[in-house]
Every structure is written in C-alpha cells, then in structure tokens.
C-alpha cells in the first residue's frame, strides 16, 4: 500500500467509491475486528491473562462473559484469542473448541461436535462413531488421561451459554466444569451470554464447580464518545490507495459530524441503544446511498437512513389496508374504548360497522357479511388482531373472542397517513363513541 501511496495514484471516482464500499462494508456487515477493543481494557486484560495462563501454565479455568447484545462479547474474545495466538508457544499448543447454543441444541450433538473439533480417534472424516453414551465416556476418558503439564490445553468456547443450561441435567456443563476443577487435561471454559441471571440457571452442583469469574461488558459510553466512534467508523484508513480522495472523504465526514441534524439523529439513536450494531445498521443504510453520482455521505443520506430504520412497522402495514379493513379496525378501537379493553368478537365489530354505515356513512356502502368476514380474517392473518385463547375452542368464528393489537395512537397515526381517506371515516374514528 505505502508504495502506491508514495506515487499517489489517483484512481477514477468509481474505483474509489467501490473501494470505500468494500472497506466500510467490512466494518459494518462483517464485524471486522478492530485493532484494539475500544474502552474495554480491564476486561480485555483479565480475559487475556486467564487464557494465557491456561495456554502457558496449563492451569484450568472457567469464565463467563456477560453483556447485552451487541456489547462486543465475541469481539473481545476474538481479539484476545488473536493476540494469544501470536505467541508461538501458544499457537503450537492450544486446541480450540467452538460451540454455540444455537447450533448444539442438546448434549448429543454437542458431544459429537466436540469430539469432531478435538479430532479424537473415534472420528473418521467428519463422522463420529459410537452412541451418545459411548461418546461421553470416550471424551471424559480422553480428558482424564490428559494432565496439566504434558497435554495440550483446550479452550472450550460456548456461545449463547444460557442455552446450554437448558440441556438435560446440564450434563455437558457439569462435566466440562468438573474437568476444569480437577487435575485433568487443562481446559478453559469460556461462556458468552447476554443474560445477567445466568448463574441462577445453573444447577447447584454445576454452579459450585464454576469458578464464579464473570467479565461484565457494560458500555458506559457517553454521547461524545459515541459521536467519536461514529466518526472513526466512517473515516478511511490512510492506507487508502487514493490519498487525495480519502482526504476529501474524511474531510466531508468531519463536516458531517458537525451537522446539527445529523447530531440530532445520533443523539436519538444513542438514546435508544448504545450498542454498535444499531449504529452500524444506520451507517450501512447511509453508505448504501453513496455512489459515483453522490461520492460522499451527505446529511440527507443519514436522515433518510434514520427514517427507514426508525419507522413504525405497524403503521406501514396499516397504510396498506383496504378501506373496509380500516373501518373494521376503527370499529374495534371504538369497542376497546367502550368496554375498556375487553375482548370482542366479529359480531360486535360488524354491528359497530353497520351502525356506522346506517348512521353517517356516505362514502362506504354496505357490504355482505361474508365479505366483511373475509376482511376480518385478513386482519387476523396479519396478526393485527389475535384470538384470546389460541382460537382452538369450538365456537363459530363470528363469536370467537379477539383482541386488537394496535395502540390508539397507532390507529390515529395510520388514519392521518392513509391515502385519500374519506372524511366521514375520519370523523367516525375521532368521534368519542361508536
């Protein structure tokens, strides 16, 4: 890169843009590891030391990394492993086993997977021989034969740790943690979870075997820091081939950060959630609008992106309803107002609707009952209304009790945005009682 920089190639704009896209997408979509976990130094140190001791001294350990979604648990772990594996002595020794609660949904599968990843001898190709029981015995014997000084340390990395706690008897956890607490092959059991109440999930004998080490990732980020990340996420590295372009780009980004409207949006999304994923989502949406014709990120793009991500999805759905369905919803809303939130059935809704037609409708003429029922059922399909009791009991569908799953405000908002909504319907909606 530096060579190219020195002769300062100026690439065509299209080339540059696609370069930008590539780099940014790496960051936003692929969770490219940063060079150093940001603002998590102490946790990082703790984890690193712990793993290092297992790798180097063969001291068994178990630790839990707890933090809300998108707090960077995986990132932290990956960084630690990356740095660790740079050590030759570690790289040659350590075995890694990666499990995820999402994939290994029970111990049978998990055991097979472990055996596979450890390349134990009852694996041929990627086929694991033996029954569940045999696999367990085999694995346990393997680990038991190991010993801290002579056999290679194993990192067990359990993503979605809480899901493992739901396995039958927590057999796997018990055994892994038991190994980590007894002089067998050195292991480090690292669990990642987003549940703060993780430990309550563990059975007491399992819990007792877990060395209660927890690394909490709780981002105490302030807004300025948030803005800073925003900027750094968008700035191009100076290894960018076309330095001229990258300077312009970075300049425009700096401007962007000063922009008031952008700041507002950032503030809003910061208030909503501090995690990076939501920020990345916003940025990706903005980035996707960058093209040759529009080679930098404009405030407008951010605004548009925000509009897309912050829209109320229910309102969007309501927007697409037919007028009949809308009327039904209004009727339901009225019923909710009258019988303060008691469930209703189709007959009542239809009744309200008919009253409306008779009394003050000019635009909407009467519909046959079956037609109305069809509309009603469409709403049911969209899960805008749901039956009170799973809809299993043997009553005629007209009399099945339903609840409306829309908030008063949502209905009103929908009415405002509804294309050429007849005025009488509007009035009916706002009128205090049906």
């Amino acid at each position, binding site marked *: 890169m530096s060579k190219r920089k020195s002769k300062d190639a100026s690439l065509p704009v299209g080339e540059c843009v696609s370069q930008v896209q590539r780099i940014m997408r790496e960051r936003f979509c692929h969770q490219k590891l940063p060079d150093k976990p940001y603002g998590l130094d102490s946790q990082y140190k703790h984890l690193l030391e712990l793993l290092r001791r297992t790798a180097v001294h063969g001291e068994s350990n178990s630790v839990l990394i707890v933090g809300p979604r998108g707090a960077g648990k995986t990132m932290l772990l990956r960084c630690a492993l990356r740095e660790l594996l740079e050590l030759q002595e570690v790289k040659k020794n350590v075995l890694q086993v990666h499990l995820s609660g999402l994939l290994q949904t029970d111990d049978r599968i998990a055991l097979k997977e472990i055996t596979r990843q450890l390349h134990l001898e009852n694996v041929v190709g990627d086929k694991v021989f033996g029954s569940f029981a045999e696999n367990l015995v085999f694995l346990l014997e393997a680990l038991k034969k190991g010993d801290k000084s002579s056999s290679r340390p194993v990192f067990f990395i359990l993503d979605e740790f809480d899901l493992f706690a739901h396995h039958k008897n927590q057999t796997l956890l018990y*055994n892994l943690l038991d190994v980590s607490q007894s002089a067998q092959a050195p292991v480090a059991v690292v669990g990642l979870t987003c549940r703060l109440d993780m430990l309550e999930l563990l059975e007491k004998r399992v819990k007792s075997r877990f060395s209660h080490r927890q690394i909490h990732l709780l981002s105490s980020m302030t807004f300025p820091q948030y803005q800073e990340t925003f900027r750094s996420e968008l700035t191009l590295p100076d290894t960018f081939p076309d330095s001229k372009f990258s300077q312009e780009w970075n300049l425009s980004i700096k401007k962007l950060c000063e922009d008031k409207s952008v700041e507002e949006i950032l503030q809003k999304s910061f208030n909503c959630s501090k995690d990076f994923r939501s920020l990345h989502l916003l940025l990706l949406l903005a980035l996707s609008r960058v093209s040759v014709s529009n080679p930098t990120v404009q405030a407008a793009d951010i605004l548009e992106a925000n509009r897309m991500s912050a829209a109320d999805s229910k309102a969007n759905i309501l927007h697409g309803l037919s007028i009949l369905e809308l009327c039904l919803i209004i009727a339901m809303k009225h019923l909710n107002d009258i019988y303060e939130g008691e469930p209703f059935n189709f007959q009542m809704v239809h009744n309200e609707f008919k009253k409306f037609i008779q009394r003050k409708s000019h635009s909407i003429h009467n519909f046959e009952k079956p037609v109305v029922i069809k509309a009603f059922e469409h709403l049911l399909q969209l899960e805008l209304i749901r039956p009170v009791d799973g809809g299993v009991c043997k009553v005629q569908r007209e009399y099945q009790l339903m609840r409306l799953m829309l908030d008063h405000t949502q209905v009103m908002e929908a009415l405002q945005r509804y294309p050429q909504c007849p005025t009488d319907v509007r009035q009916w909606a706002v009128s205090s009682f049906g």
Partner: protein
Amino acid sequence: MSRYHTMLRIRRSYKLEGRPITEDRKLKRAFYRSLSIAVDGRPRKAVVSVGQCILIEGDDEDNPFVAQLLKLFTDDTGKKKKAVVKWFVRVSEIPSNKIGLLGRDPHPQEIFYYQDSSCDNEVDAETILGAVQVTQIPAEAQFPDGASKDTLFVKLLWDTKAFRILDTELFQSPQSPRSPPPAQRAPRLRSLPTPDPSVMKRAMTGIATRGSMSTGKINSTEAESAHSASKLSAAKVLNVKRRSRVSSNPTIRKKLDLCSPSKKLTRDDVLGEILDDDQEMEEDLATKMGWFPTSSAEEEHEDSPALSAATPRSKRKSAQCVSSRIKKQLNMLSNQDELQSDGEDAGDDGCFVPTKLDLESSSDEEEEEMKGDSEDELVVKRSRRSTCPKTPRSTEKRRASARTPRKTPSKKAAPSTPRTPLHATPSIPARSLPARKPGNVLEEARLRLHVSSVPESLPCREQEFQDIYNFVESKVMDGTGGCMYISGVPGTGKTATVHEVIRSLQQAAEQDEIPHFNFIEINGMKMTDPHQAYVQILQKLTNQKATADHAAALLEKRFSMPAPKKETTVLLVDELDLLWTRKQNVMYNLFDWPTRRHARLVVLTIANTMDLPERIMINRVASRLGLTRMSFQPYTFKQLQQIITSRLNKVKAFEEDALQLVSRKVAALSGDARRCLDICRRATEICEYSSQRSSTGLVGMSHVMEALDEMFSSSYIAAIRCTSLQEQLFLRAVIAEFRRLGLEEATFQQVFVQHQALCRMEGLQPVSVSEGLAVCQRLGACRLLLLEPSRLDLLLRVRLNVSQDDVLYALKAD
C-alpha cells in the same frame, strides 16, 4: 477347540472318588485323591486325580486355564469341593509386550510354568473341565510336531519378569498330595498375619500360582490388587483375631498419618509402596534361597506402615536399588501431578502409587503405562480376544483393541477400513512445548489453591473420614456388604473424603492389614441415562461391554452367585439422585445387591440433599438403603481458613486478615470450599496485576475485597446504570405503571403509555411503538425484565426481574 463350547453347554456332575485320604481337623477339611466328572449324555466319566494336569474353566472358553492339580478337599461345610492347583500360563496370557522376551515365536500348544507369588491357588473344584496331557520338553529340544491337539508342552518358566529355563524337579507330577502340616500353620498365623500361609508355603515349595485365572467370570480389572490377591485366604483365616483389632488399631494409625504433615504422608506411602513391591521380588529371591523373611513381616505388622516404611526397611540392602525411584516419586508428587503424568514421565513407578491407582474410576489408562510388573497380564487378558500387531507403541494398540467392542457402533463395521475407530484411543494430544512452572510466589500459591490440585490430606474432615473408614474397613474385613448414604451441599469435600478413605484403605491393603478389595466409582452426572450405570459398573468390574439390560443381568448373576474367588467390591455412586428412574429399579438394584449373601459389595452413595431417601425413594428402595447415613456440614470459617492454609502450606502469599475475610464471607454464604479457593486465586491475580501492590507484596484486604465483590455482587445495578436513556425511561415507566395498578405486572401497552408521557416530560420526542418494543425486548434479553413471547406484542405482560428499589436506586444515582 469348539468342543469346550459343547462341554460348557452340558451339565457336569462332580464327585469325589474314594474315601478321604487325610483329614485336617482344624480346618475340618477332608482331602481326597481323585475327582470324577460325570458328563451326562456320555457313558464313561472322566476322572482327574491329584497330580494330573487339568483344564480349568476360564473366561475364555477356547483356551481354558491349565494347571496341575495338587489337592482335592471338601471345605468345612463338607459340601463344597475345593482344589489346590498350580498354574501354567498359555502364550496368550503373557502380556504381548513381554512375549518379545521369548526370543522366538511361541509354539501354539506351548504353555509356561507360572511362577508368581501373586495369585490364589485355591479353586472351586466345580470349575475343572477335565484332564489334559502336559509333557515337559527340555529347553533346547524341538517341539514334536504332529502331536495331537490336546497335548500341551511346557518348556520354560514365566515369573512375570522373564522366561527362565524350567528345571525338571519343579514340574513333576507329585506322588502324594502334600497335606499342609496344620501344626506349623496355626501358630504362625497367630504370630504374624502377613504374608499369609499360602504365600509362605509356596515360598518354601517354590510353587507359584496364579489366582485371578482360576475364576470364570471375574476378569482382570480386579487385578489392581491381583498381585496380592493370594493374601485373601490368609485374611479369611485371620478374621477372628482381626476383628478385635479393627476398631482400635487401624483407626489410631489413620489418625496418625492425618495429623502427620501431609507431605510426609505421601512420601511414606510411596515408600511403603515401593518397598512392598520389592518385598515381592525379595520373596521370589527367597524362593531360590529357601529362607523366609519372617522378620520383615513381623516388624511390618507391629509398627504403623506410615512410619515403619521409612525407617527399618531402608536399612535393607534392597533399599539402595530403590532409592533412585523414591527420589523420582517425591519430586513427582511435589509437582502434585496426577497419576497419568507419572504414567508418562515417571515410568512404571507411577502406577505403583496405590492411592492414585484406586482413585481412578476406570483403570485402563494407567495399566497401559505399567511396564514390567505383574499387573501387565491383566491388560493382555483384556485384549486377548482380539490379538493385535506388536509395534513399538504396542501398549497403545493393545489399549485400542481392548476397547474395540466398546468404541465401534458395530463390531462388524469396524475392521473394514484401517482408519475406523477400531483403534480409537481417548487422548488429548501431548503439547509440543512443556508447560511453564510457576515463576513467583503468587503463581505458586495460585497453583496450590487451584481446586484441582490434589490435597495431600483433608483437614477438618477427620470425623467423617473416621466413620467412613471404619464402615468400609469392617465390611471389607468380614467380607459382608452394606450401603452408606453420604449427603452434603456441594463443595464440602464428600467425594474427596471418600477417595481419601479408599486411598488409605488401599494402602492398608498394600501393607496386608486388610484383605484386598477393588474400588469402582460411577457418577450419575457422567452418564447419559440411569441405566448406563449397569454398563459402566460391569465395564469397570470385568472389562466386558454389554447393553444396559444385559449388563444388569450379568451383574445380578455376579452378585448373587457364589464365585470361586471373590474380593469385596467397594462401589462409590456419586450424584445418586441422577440415577432416579420412574420405577427406581437402578437404585433398587444398587441397594439390593449388597444384601445378597455372596455379593460382598459395599456401596457408598453420595448426593447433595440430606433427605433424598425420604423425598424421592419409594419404600422398598429406601429401606434397603438402610440407616447408615452421614451428612457433611458446610465448612465453618475456621475450617475454611485451615483448608487454605494447609493448601498453601508454608507458601506465604496472603495476609492473615485477608484469609479471615475470605473464609468468613464464604462461610456466611455457602461454606463451599471451592468458592473459597476460587476467590483466593482470583485475589492473587488481582494482587499480581494491580498497579499498587501492597507493601508486603502479599495479597491484602483490598485485593480480597475486590475479588469478593467481583464474584458476589449482583451486576444488575451496574447493568441498569449502563443502559441507554430510553431503556432507563422504560424501566421508570414500568415502575410507574406498577404503582398505578398496584400490581407487579403490566402489559406492554400500559407501560408504553407511561413511557410516552415520561418522554414528553424529559423533552425527548416520543419513540414509535416498534422502537418501544425493541427497547423493551432488549431489557428482556438481558433479563432485567421478564417478558412473554413477543408474538403478542402490545399485550405481552412485563415483570421486573429486579426489585423496584434497586431500579430506583440505580437510576437515582446518576
């Protein structure tokens, strides 16, 4: 050799021929000259007479064991026919890594004169299959070829170490069975319990016999102690005078080595250990020289093994050759390695540490490591069925083939491809670079504080130790069975104590104070369903593999049948409650077997609830479990403190008050020793990496404090403080709504209304419902809130998972 099959199928009836030739009044034994075996369906009955060579039913039907019949007698009851034999070994019984010593490949019909002090020569006569022709050939002569299938040739002598030329007078068919002179036996018995008469006699006659082979079913796993199995009979005889001593003598002794600095203890048992086995070679040597080491036996009996081992023996000439080993042993132990390691680096002595040996639940691994000692046969036994290529790593292979039936889904599938798990070996690859040794004091301390580091002794559990010890020992002594139920919250050293007990019992057995027994351990958590228990027990007892039902049947048979030779089996069942099934038949069997007359089974069960029997067991099970119960109380802070200090011993890493704090805190919370140790370890780390090291460089209050609240303080409050603004608002809204409703529960819709209001108050623009839901469900994901499934979005009910006060406190703070 299929005819053995057929012979096994058909019933045989045994009858002692003629009149008793001699009587032994003391033992009420009548000695006979010959035994007739009538096989129904065959006209003439086979007669085996004393001095003949015979085939004895073994666990391998194709090659039954070969022996020479020495005596035939009826035991005191007068019913049971017994026989005293002298053993031969077949080629297939020699450990495959020894067979090399032969120098030529053995003749298929060749057998070896077996000379080893370590097996029982008393056989149930009913296991005799029939006579066989054994001819001795001078060492240099060729094997006569074209000989009939059922003549066997003996040429050499096998004494478990090497093949030696067999001199003719050792093997000649004796004219008259030597009846043991009772006069000389009795007094000796009284004077010295060990080594038992049969050994002595053999020592004099120079006849070694091999016991574990005489049994039909009992397989080689028992043989952790096989090389002293012979002492069993002596123990039987001794029981009388034993029982008087049981209560007093050993207990005192145990107290002794508990109090004695633990390091010393290990050194001693190692010593005792080593000496024990070189005592054996001494006996062999004695066989040659014809004198008998009475003296050694006596002193061994009189003073406690713990101390005796060190002092008087070291004088003996054999000590020098051992001393090197001892050194090895010691530094090995100081590293506190577990036995596998000595398997690797400390070569054969590793597996001689009985404590470790029997701590092991499954004994396969370390047997691989045993090189050049009598245990080796066993491994072969296991692998006899599948003979396998001899390679440098033959132990490896052997183990593998040994496991074949267990490791492959179907026996047939396996051999097809070379790379099938036919040779599967459970092992973690060895590390390329050795692990680093601890650098500084703190690291040293951390090492010692790790739960895994095997403690040399268990402080604060003397009483429990004592009770369990007495229980098991008495049962082992008088060969009866029994159950014991041990309960206690996790981390109170239940399992550890039991292991400790077994260890010292094994030690005692090594010192021949008590008959040998074998120890099996299963863990309810380490099996996939309760019925696997049968499979595992059977697997560890006799190395056979079977389905759960079949295993159950076999065990049933084993424990209800009187077997020719049987040791007491001590079975440790950990995490008992996991063995619960609806019909509870697993538990039932476990507790029922000990009550059988011939079972000789001692069952120790461990669980962490005190009233388990009352809660989950149906009557018939509970009643069989009986009333021998013991509950481990959680450690008090004093005990915890003592534990830490004993672990640390002498390594000065902690300030006193720091230790105080930890132990008090833990004692107050759980009394879980593991927790305590973990905290201490964490504290050492904190101390090590903290910028401000306390002046002494020791772990101080501050560090311990930090470690403590790292582990114990709930993270909720911190979490709430770190949530985003909207999330905090939502929590507020939840509380507000709860207050309004006067309930602890509200639907999202209700809360959301409050949330909007709060937003307006805070001057934020209200969020859309979707965002609101997202916020709510983020809180739900980390369980600050408890939510219903998201399908009923607006209607999902919301609960707090934290106390309202905590929330308010957390929110007020900032």
